[in-house]
């Protein structure tokens, strides 16, 4: 490992001398990038917190004393608590299958895993309405048996799972492919069962990558707006998640409360970003080629 990094260090240092652009041009490029980031990323973030505290700490806290706000927070946590673990299981299974076995339809499976990235979240929400809504394919049957999916928690969870499915799998597939199957085979020849091999050999090797995927998956699960908006039905105190609650507050010109609740999501993003950077800094090698996302 250390010889490798030493070998890699060489081309990096010699690369600097290869850059031929003049100093002013380099500074210009860096400045443009910085100004862009300030304008489009940092400024909005600052505005969120400034607006949230416009009427002081009291005004900020007042936003969280409302029953609807608390219900929205609770719902978002519940949805994430269901969707993220399920996607961890699905993601692990899918990447395990893709990385460690050869089978027909493998590339199709990889394409399907990427599907949520390429479909508009609103469309994915609509799909669930078409399937489970009152006028939908299974609607009448579900209604007859008293099962509520659309405009209720199950629908929101389903839509969230769909939208956040790729995060764990996408993170793990390249990592597991790179690691190959030799360590697993070694464990098997030593007498370990398949399950034990997975727990004691495979999992430790992918744990940082998995955590990274979970982090991104969770951030998206809590922040998802489009898909959830379609299936939720916007019932206050019942089917409103944090993002939907923010929208309602804003539409009612309750700006301070809207920004106060938004600051929760912004805070989540900042924590996610910090943890993500920490993982990349501390365990970069164990995240392997998967870090490009």
């Amino acid at each position, binding site marked *: *490992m*250390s010889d490798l990094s030493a070998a890699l260090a060489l081309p990096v240092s010699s690369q600097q001398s290869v850059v031929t652009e003049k100093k002013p041009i380099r500074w210009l490029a860096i400045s443009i990038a910085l100004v862009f980031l300030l304008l489009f990323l940092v400024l909005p973030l600052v505005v969120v917190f400034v607006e949230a505290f416009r009427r002081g700490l009291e005004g900020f806290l007042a936003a969280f004393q409302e029953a609807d706000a608390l219900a929205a927070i609770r719902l978002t946590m519940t949805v994430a608590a269901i969707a993220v673990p399920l996607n961890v299981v699905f993601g692990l299974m899918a990447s395990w299958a893709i990385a460690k076995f050869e089978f027909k339809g493998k590339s199709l499976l990889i394409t399907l895993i990427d599907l949520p990235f390429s479909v508009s979240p609103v469309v994915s929400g609509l799909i669930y309405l078409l399937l489970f809504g009152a006028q939908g394919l299974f609607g009448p049957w579900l209604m007859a048996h008293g099962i509520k999916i659309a405009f209720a928690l199950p629908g929101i969870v389903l839509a969230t799972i769909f939208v956040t499915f790729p995060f764990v799998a996408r993170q793990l597939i390249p990592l597991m492919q790179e690691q190959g199957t*030799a*360590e697993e*085979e*070694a*464990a*098997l*020849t*030593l*007498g*370990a*069962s398949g399950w*034990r091999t997975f727990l004691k*050999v495979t999992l*430790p*090797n992918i744990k940082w990558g998995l955590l990274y995927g979970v982090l991104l998956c969770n951030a998206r699960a809590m922040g998802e707006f489009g898909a959830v908006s379609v299936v939720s039905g916007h019932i206050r105190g019942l089917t409103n998640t944090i993002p939907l609650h923010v929208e309602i507050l804003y539409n009612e010109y309750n700006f301070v409360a809207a920004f106060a609740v938004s600051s929760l999501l912004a805070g989540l993003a900042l924590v996610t970003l910090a943890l993500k950077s920490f993982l990349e800094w501390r365990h970069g090698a164990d995240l392997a080629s998967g870090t490009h996302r």
Partner: protein
Amino acid sequence: MEPISPVARIAEQGQAVDIRVADVTKVFAGSAALHDVNLTVRPGELLALLGPSGSGKTTLLRVIAGLAQADRGQVFFGGSDATRLPVQKRQVGFVFQHYALFKHMSVADNVAYGLKVRERANRPSKSEIQRRVSELLDLVQLSGFDNRFPAQLSGGQRQRVALARALAVEPRVLLLDEPFGALDAKVRKDLRAWLRDIHERTGKTTVFVTHDQDEALELADRVAVLNQGRLEQVGSPDDVQDHPATPFVMTFLGQAARFNAEIRDGRVLVNGKPAPVAAPKSTIGQASLYCRPWHLKPVPAGHGYHQGIVSGIRRLGSMRRIEVSQADGKKLEVEVALVTNLSVGEEIGLDILDGVIFRDG
């Protein structure tokens, strides 16, 4: 007086068993990776599976280990059918080309892994495991490395840990897949002698895969040569070198020049002249004569069986090899004494002293 080594104890723990591979065929995407392979590895033997890449040698080893399933055929360990046994139950020690050490475990934990995963009833106590681990690390000359991690070891050290880990479970047989393939030349040489030593001390039936002829011939009791999924020959290093069964074995084991020949009246004729090579009995017709560099001798131009031009001279240890270009553009090598008056560009004749004859077709 020599103290009783831990290895002596390991050797006592089990009688060496034989491995028998019967009619094993494996097909990969239409092409046969193994074709009706029959092979017996004798108890306590060190056998090399030698072949070029793609010859099926690693596949055969994986079939023996249970890491791959044969499409047809059977594998026996010590007379009992192991074909349907899952890899966990085969009790094989497997060493991988790229070590496959558990990256997140210390050296001691790697070696102990096979003992720790046993069912409670067969699992040695903690102190017993610890004792065995330090014995094995002693054996592979890595005492004191217990708490290191694989990333902190050199390639040679990693492979030694891998071997200790494989031996820890007291395998019935030891299987090594290109064990020195990823190491540099110097380490390779050292580890060869060391593996031979360990094999003698543990007495385990051992099969190792290699594409390196020198490694196979130097290390193994017997060599099994594979080509395109078929076993070409199994024999002692002397056997396969002196009596190659097929032209492939002849050319794969070292430099060999091929000449058209004819077998007639119990004699081998090259360019119409009888050569000093015994002809196979009761065969007649076109044949190929293969000659090693030391089977040929330069003679003045116009004499000998063939003519050529010296196109290169280089030193090889205590001898010299001259490269001879023939009229048809083919080049061959001839071994000569260190002191020679030949020079590049000189026309010479080639005399045949010996060779191996194969009937064509």
